[in-house]
Every structure is written in structure tokens, then in C-alpha cells.
């Protein structure tokens, strides 16, 4: 029995190391020079562990800081607006009765079945008509709210005792006042979760930004990464350095706040 347990732990650990390896390999490659990565046979450690030349080169070749800033801006706006709209809707769905409420909620959840790619052509045409192609507003517009957010907020608000809300009503607060003074303070964990998850999703977004942007200045970081592949021979030392730069911010957020992300995943899973 003891042996068996050890074997199991070992298997899990080996798997985890295999899964982690690509990250390690990316980081190591980003510290190598071009001749180093073309050595045969391959050498795993870089000659100098503190060779950050590739990172400097990334910023020289492309406005990579701009890409990072664009992604941060777009993802922050999407996360913030998502929290506002979703928590309002969550309150409405969880604590009020009005005609059509359940049907409307079901309709929103049903939107999960509509793939974004099925609506992308009309959205592109509208953005074009509105003159929003290649603007921040255009990039962020379809991501301002997500179904998951509404779902999460409804779940979180449902468990607030009705007594709290009624007590605030007796005190004569308007419904909006109640929302700010009673509801929002009691769903802080859900807000944190949604902020992180939505930020992460939008930071990693690729399809729509590619469709809607044309100029170099409006590229987000995933598109910026692609500009290191448009050559005959891909300079993987630069590409991996750029990849590290694109992943690192989100990875730091993720590792520090993993608890919330896991909660979000579990939430979407258990209530499925």
C-alpha cells in the first residue's frame, strides 16, 4: 500500500514536470544567442544564464511595450465593464421577480452555444460602418460582458440573505443604493474572481483583435508575438523572449491569485 502511494505520487509528479517542461524550455531558449540554439547536438543550459540580449532585441525590433500596454488596457476595460454589467444583471436575476425573468436568464446561458466565429462577419461589418475598425473601442466592444460573468454574479448574489436587502429597503434606500451598499460589499470574492478570469481571457484573445486591427500601433500582445514568425527562418531565441514577456504578466497574476481562478473553474464546472 505504501509503495503504491509512492508510485502514484511519482507518476503525478512526472506528469507535472512534463507539462511544465515547455515553460522551462521557453525560458532557457530566450537566454541563448542565435548560434547557441543552432548547435548540434543540442545543449540544454545557455552559455550565460544572464544573457538578456534577446529581450533588448525584442523591444528594438517591435514596439513590444506598446503591444503589452494595448493588451493591458483592453483587458482591464473588459474586466471592469464585465464586473459592472454582470453584477447588475446578477442582482436583477437573483433578487427580483419580473415577467420573463427565467426565460431571459436561460436565453443568456444559451448564448454559450453561439460560437464567436459565427457572429464575426456581421460584427466586422458593423465596426466598419461605425468607423471603429482599428480602434480600442472596436477591439474591446464584443468582450465587454461575458455570459460566465452574469452566471457567476447571479450565483454569488443568490446566497445573500433576503433579510439584509429587505432591511435596507425598510431604511428607505433605493434599489440602486441597496446594490452599492449591501450587494457589492458582500460579493467581493466573486468580483475578484471575475476580474482575474476576464482579464486573463482578454489578455490571451487573438481571433477578434486580428480581425479588427490593421495598424502596428493597435496590435495586442498575441498579435505582436506573431510578428516574430513572419520570417523565412524563425529566430526562436527572439520569439521565446517575446513569448516570455507576453506570458509573464499573466502568469504572475495567475500564480498569486490562483485560488480565485480555480474557484471560477470549479464554479463553471460544478454548476454545469
Amino acid at each position, binding site marked *: 500500500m505504501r509503495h503504491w502511494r509512492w508510485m502514484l505520487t511519482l507518476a*503525478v509528479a512526472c506528469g507535472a*514536470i512534463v507539462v511544465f517542461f515547455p515553460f522551462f524550455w521557453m525560458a532557457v531558449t530566450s537566454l541563448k544567442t542565435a548560434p547557441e540554439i543552432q548547435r548540434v547536438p543540442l545543449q540544454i543550459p545557455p552559455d550565460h544564464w544572464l544573457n538578456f540580449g534577446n529581450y533588448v532585441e525584442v523591444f528594438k525590433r517591435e514596439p513590444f511595450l506598446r503591444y503589452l500596454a494595448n493588451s493591458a488596457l483592453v483587458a482591464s476595460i473588459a474586466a471592469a465593464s464585465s464586473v459592472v454589467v454582470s453584477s447588475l444583471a446578477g442582482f436583477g436575476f437573483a433578487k427580483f*421577480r419580473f415577467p420573463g425573468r427565467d426565460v431571459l436568464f436561460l436565453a443568456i446561458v444559451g*448564448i454559450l452555444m453561439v*460560437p464567436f466565429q459565427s457572429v*464575426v462577419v456581421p460584427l466586422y461589418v458593423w465596426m466598419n460602418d461605425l468607423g471603429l475598425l482599428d480602434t480600442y473601442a472596436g477591439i474591446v466592444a464584443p468582450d465587454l460582458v461575458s455570459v460566465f460573468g452574469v452566471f457567476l454574479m447571479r450565483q454569488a448574489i443568490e446566497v445573500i440573505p433576503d433579510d439584509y436587502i429587505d432591511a435596507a429597503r425598510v431604511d428607505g434606500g433605493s434599489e440602486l443604493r441597496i*446594490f452599492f451598499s449591501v450587494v457589492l460589499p458582500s460579493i467581493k470574492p466573486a468580483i475578484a474572481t471575475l476580474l482575474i478570469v476576464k482579464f486573463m481571457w482578454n489578455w490571451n484573445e487573438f481571433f477578434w483583435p486580428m480581425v479588427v486591427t490593421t495598424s502596428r500601433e493597435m496590435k495586442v500582445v498575441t498579435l505582436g508575438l506573431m510578428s516574430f514568425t513572419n520570417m523565412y527562418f524563425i529566430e526562436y531565441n527572439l520569439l521565446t523572449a517575446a513569448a516570455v514577456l507576453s506570458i509573464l504578466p499573466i502568469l504572475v497574476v495567475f500564480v498569486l491569485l490562483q485560488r480565485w481562478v480555480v474557484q471560477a*473553474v470549479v464554479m463553471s464546472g460544478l454548476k454545469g
Partner: protein
Amino acid sequence: MRAWYRLVFPRSYLDRRKRAGFLFVLPALCFFGFVYLLPLAQSVAYSFYKIAPGGAREFAGLSRYEKVLTDSTFWTAVGNTVQLLLLSVPATVVCALAVALGLDRIASLKWRNVWASMYFLPFATSLVAAALIWQWIYEPVYGFLNYALSFAGIAPQKWLQSLAQVKPSIAVVSVWVRVGFDTMIFLAALQTIPEEYYEAARMDGAGAWQRLRYITLPMLNAQIVMVCILELIFNFKIFDQVYATTQGGPAGASQTIIMLLYDTAFKYFRFGEASVMAVFVFVTLMVITVLQWRLLRKPVEY
């Protein structure tokens, strides 16, 4: 009707509260209406039009459908997508189940969290970055994979550049990105299974396999179904990984539906044909989801 009338013109306090509730959900409703429902209807409408790259459109009946659905390129892309899906979905779900079962048995909470977060890490990465890292690992001459395999006496393979290996190679990237997400769902569900069930089974002399077969898997039924559906949807829409690495190559062997849709719409600006594909994707996903839900979701039996 009267209920709706009262929403607009509330008479009593209760009417006003109903209206307040409706107003709270209104922004979200508007958003989803404008970003999903209206464009979806528009996509359906576009699919009946012949739209020139400049924007001039004329009604074309079902001719766009005929054009797309009789085009061998389209069916090749559908075939590729299905093959990719058959490679990655079962692999992802089985791996995630195995990892979750393994993690669940690890007694030390601290170590369990460490290993779990390592499996979960790729989920935070963009698909583009993930695919590009893997492309470097797959690199035929300088890549790590061929180097590692050389120790087992295996000759260098071409991976993403090979007709036969490109699909499994891309499937590995999809599995790598998704396995942690599914693991988390399974792990959370595993922890809700009461320990007494296992103890009772042990008393009755059930072995490890029997406990897995008759307790764990039935208790996870709902999660397994849901994860299968999520993975199916995710893999059906595969785009980023392919676009970033092979662009559909070599010789169209990794061309997928969404790749074709993207090219048709935004490279050749043939919105009519692209909309036919959009409708096809939507209808297929809806049918698959509903069917899977119906067929696989059984009531939990004890």
C-alpha cells in the same frame, strides 16, 4: 402583456420593484442582443446573399450554400477538424481524469496544490504562445523533441511539417493547454464524493478498480458529460494554434473549418460564403451539444 405594460408604467410599489429588477438586467440583455443575437440573425441573412468584396450584395437564394457544400476544400476542412477533435478530446478527458484521480489520492495538501498548479499553468497561456513554444520543440533540426527521441534511437521526425504527423502534433498542443482546466473540474467534483461510499464498498470487498467503476465514475457523470461538451466545442472551433504554426499546411493537412472561414471572410472578403460556414458551425455545435446532453446525461444511480 399586462405584466409588461406594468413594467413600463408601474402603479404600485411591487410594480416598481419588478421594474427595478428588469432595469438591472437590461444592460446585459442589450449587450448580448447586439453582440450575439442580432449578428447571428445577420449571419443567417448574409448566407443567402452574394456579397462582392466591395460590399455590393444581391439576393442569391441557396446558391451560396450550394457553392460551399459542394466544395471539396470545405469538406476537407471539416474532415480535418473532426480528425483533430477525435485525437484531442478523448485524450484530454482521459488524461484529466487520470491526473485528477492521482491528485485526489495525494495526502499532503501542500504538495497536491503544487502539482495541481503545474498542470493548470498552461491554461493561463495564450494559445498563440503555447503553439509557438511547441513549434520550437517540434523543430525538425534544432528542436528538443527530436533530440530527446534520438536517445531512444528514433530518427528525426518532421512533426508539424509532415502530412501524417501534423494533426497529432497540433492535438498535443490542445491537450497540453486544456488538461489542467478539466483536471480542476474533476478534482473539485471528486472531493464532494462522501468517503463513506468508499468505506462501504471496501467493507463489501470491492477492489480499487470496482470502486472506480461503480462509485467514482458514476458520481462524476455530470462533470464528465460537461467536460466532453466543453472540449468538443473548444476543439471544433480550433483556430489560434493552427494559424500560429502551420497556417493550415502542409498541403492543407491541418486546414480547419474556422481557418477556412477566416480566410474566406478576411482574406478573400467573400462574406456570403463565410456566413454559410458560420451558420454551419453554429448549427453543428448546437446539434452536438443537445445530442450529447441527451445521450450521455444519465441520472446518477446508487
